[in-house]
């Protein structure tokens, strides 16, 4: 296991370096963009003097690298912010204060994150079961009618925009059949049962979109494995088709599925805007869109960093899982 521990450590260091690079790039890209942030923050009716004052308050006059230094300092050690009348302490990890509401960005994200995690976590379970299951079935029954029907359904799922699927689901399930109430976010801590019932439709809508790519990937990598020599060995030894497909071929499909899942989970946390909007889920994606609209840079930067963190983290986890699934990875 020594090799694996070393691998995990190396991968963790790599992830930290990537995150640092992302933070620099994100900071520079957003803060160095043209456009007068102070003017926008202050509002269209502000006098030049007021704009100037806002700029000073937001430290916009300092050079970029100094501001990035402050930002890093806040992230590691926390920071005090003066909001004109009072001083607000923002403890580490501090991502700054919102220009719009003077709220701490960290608190803002922490409030939204459970929603996004709930949505993506549940949807992931469904898209993995649906996608991998469809992929296995269609690899097994390749060329037959059942495979074509399955492939057709998953393709249709991907091709239909989420607001169409979501709306149809809502109209049918909640409106016509009245099986479920119209979704409304309930925190997991408040009432786990209501949490799950309210998330069923969002989960399904998001999962249907993602499932097809998993189905295709699983099918392709299983067919590839099925054509390999070691499958021929087991056939020649009388091992049953069920065991060949379920044990040997599926194992070969694990690695690419893990990799795809990592990127999808990471990006869905910040990118499921349509699903969040449609079902009124106050998640990260919705908040990010709002922050971009009002040029609330600390919120934008903070959220992009958090999303980046999840993408990097999910990929690092995927790499480790990959290595556990296939020990040859560690050696190379």
């Amino acid at each position, binding site marked *: 296991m020594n090799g694996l521990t070393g691998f995990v450590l190396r991968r963790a260091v790599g992830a930290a370096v990537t995150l640092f690079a992302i933070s620099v790039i994100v900071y520079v890209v957003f803060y160095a963009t043209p456009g007068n942030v102070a003017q926008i923050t202050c509002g269209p009716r502000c006098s030049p003097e007021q704009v100037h004052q806002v700029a000073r308050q937001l430290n916009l006059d300092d050079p970029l690298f100094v501001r990035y230094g402050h930002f890093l300092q806040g992230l590691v050690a926390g920071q005090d912010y003066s909001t004109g009348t009072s001083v607000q302490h923002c403890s580490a990890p501090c991502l700054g204060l919102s220009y719009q509401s003077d709220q701490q960005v960290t608190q803002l994200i922490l409030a939204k994150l459970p929603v996004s995690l709930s949505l993506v976590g549940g949807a992931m379970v469904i898209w993995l079961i649906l996608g991998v299951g469809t992929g296995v079935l269609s690899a097994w029954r390749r060329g037959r009618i059942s495979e074509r029907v399955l492939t057709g359904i998953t393709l249709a799922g991907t091709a239909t925009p989420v607001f169409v699927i979501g709306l149809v689901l809502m109209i049918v399930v909640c409106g016509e059949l009245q099986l479920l109430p119209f979704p409304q976010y309930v925190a997991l801590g408040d009432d786990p049962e209501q949490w799950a019932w309210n998330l069923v439709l969002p989960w399904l809508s998001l999962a249907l979109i993602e499932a097809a790519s998993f189905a295709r990937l699983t099918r392709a990598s299983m067919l590839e494995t099925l054509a*390999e020599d070691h499958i021929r060995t087991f056939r020649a030894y*009388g*091992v049953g088709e069920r065991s060949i497909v379920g044990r*040997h071929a599926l194992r070969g499909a694990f690695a690419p599925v893990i990799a795809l899942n990592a990127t999808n989970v990471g990006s869905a946390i910040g990118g499921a805007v349509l699903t969040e909007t449609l079902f009124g889920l106050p998640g990260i994606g919705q908040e990010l869109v709002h922050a971009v609209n009002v040029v609330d840079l600390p919120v934008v930067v903070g959220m992009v960093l958090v999303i980046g963190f999840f993408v990097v983290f999910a990929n690092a986890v995927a790499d480790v899982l990959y290595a556990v699934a296939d020990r*040859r990875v560690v050696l190379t």
Partner: protein
Amino acid sequence: MSLVDVTGLRVEFGALRAVDGLSFRLEEGAALALVGESGSGKSTVASALLGLHRGTGARVEGTVEVAGTDVQRASEEELRRLRGGRAAMVFQDPLSSLDPYYAIGDQIAEVYRVHARVSRRAARARAVEVLDRVGIPDAARRSRSRPHEFSGGMRQRALIAMALACEPRLLIADEPTTALDVTVQAQVLDLLHTLREETGMGLLLVTHDVGVAAESVDEVLVMRHGRAVEHGPVAGVLGAPTQPYTRELLAAVPRLDAPRKASTAPEEVVLEATGLRREFGRGKRAVTAVDEVSLVLRRGETLGVVGESGSGKTTLGRMLVGLLEPTAGSLTFEGRPHTGVNPAVQMVFQDPVSSLNPRRSVGESIADPLRARGERQEGRIRERVGELLERVGLEAAHYDRYPHEFSGGQRQRVGIARALAADPRVIVCDEPVSALDVTTQAHVVDLLGELQRELGLALVFVAHDLAVVRQVSDRVAVMRRGRVVEEGPVGEVYESPRDPYTRQLLAAVPALDPQAAARRRAERRELAVA
């Protein structure tokens, strides 16, 4: 009743008839070899014995009876009981023939449990037992290893162990030693021999290597174009063949005892290596691939470099042409320091499939060295490439064809033409014939000899096949673990080897004569004891 009874077997893949009316029998406990070149249909026959063509779209006609099962008519269930239970198959490439994700012991146990109603634990114990039986040291511990943690020879032993697990009456071995080094090949063949003596199982060996067949079986069936050419006891067929094709095949097999007439090499040294050394990796993981090798190559001579996989022979070859920078040591070409790539020192690669760009016509590939030298006139390039193609036995009109339109031997000729395009004085050939059939091998070797005489080329011939090296070389260097353990005129090294490793290598080469094979087997036992 015979163990195997095949009558009028015909296998068609679409329009291609791979096996065309083949009949043969194999008695209980006997051993038969199907010998033939690639495309002769021998592996197709092996697969047909286990009904492996079912569901693949191949059309199979005729009757195949194996261990009392009519393979053509048997139900899926009966076939599954036959496969692995009464007739087990060992495949060519032991790395790809095992599942990379599972421990070797688990894979053997899984197969065992298909045929025997036993607990997981008992199956696992059986796996360890058979692994121990085929000579895997510390079998209980090694059974938990995955295939990539085994060496090639050990993987092949593991596959044989899998075959043994259910005590089959018939073992079908499809090119079981083709991917292995010669000493490992000898060990695996000896193992098969011992197992057969002990268990009394029948053996059907599929091989392109007549020597391997001579070592292992009682009867030989020579196949060509899906038909039997000659069939009979091994001593008869190989000793006194009646069919022209069998004679041709045997004549093409390189022999240890057939020396070439020495070329009259002048003393002029073209390429000299002094203390060449090459390491890969850094720090603790550094591997020394070539270690303190010093060689001279004279004009018009052939220097053979033999060794097993991992001996550093390819690395040495690449350094000689300047494709790899030596870590230490120096190279001189015609007295001047030789660094980097030099048009006068060219290379012919092992795999004629992957060493030609499949997306470019062969003419374009051959023209590369000409263009690299600054030739710009299309007319002149075409003319020169045409000459080169004809020089290596192809046609000038082949310029616009693509690699896939050629056979393996023809592709290797293209590779040689490309090497010649730069007007080299030295050509390093890295395993130039190891991917080819014996008859094709012989033609390519002849071509290289002809070119050498006409153009006064100095050749470095890197190969693992001792017999081929003997045929083409004036001098030979034997490599082991990056070092040259023995070097000298080819006759001396082969007839009175000084180094024990050279002796071991020579004893491992399969002999064409079954009696000689038995002698060699005894010799190997002695060497193993010593």
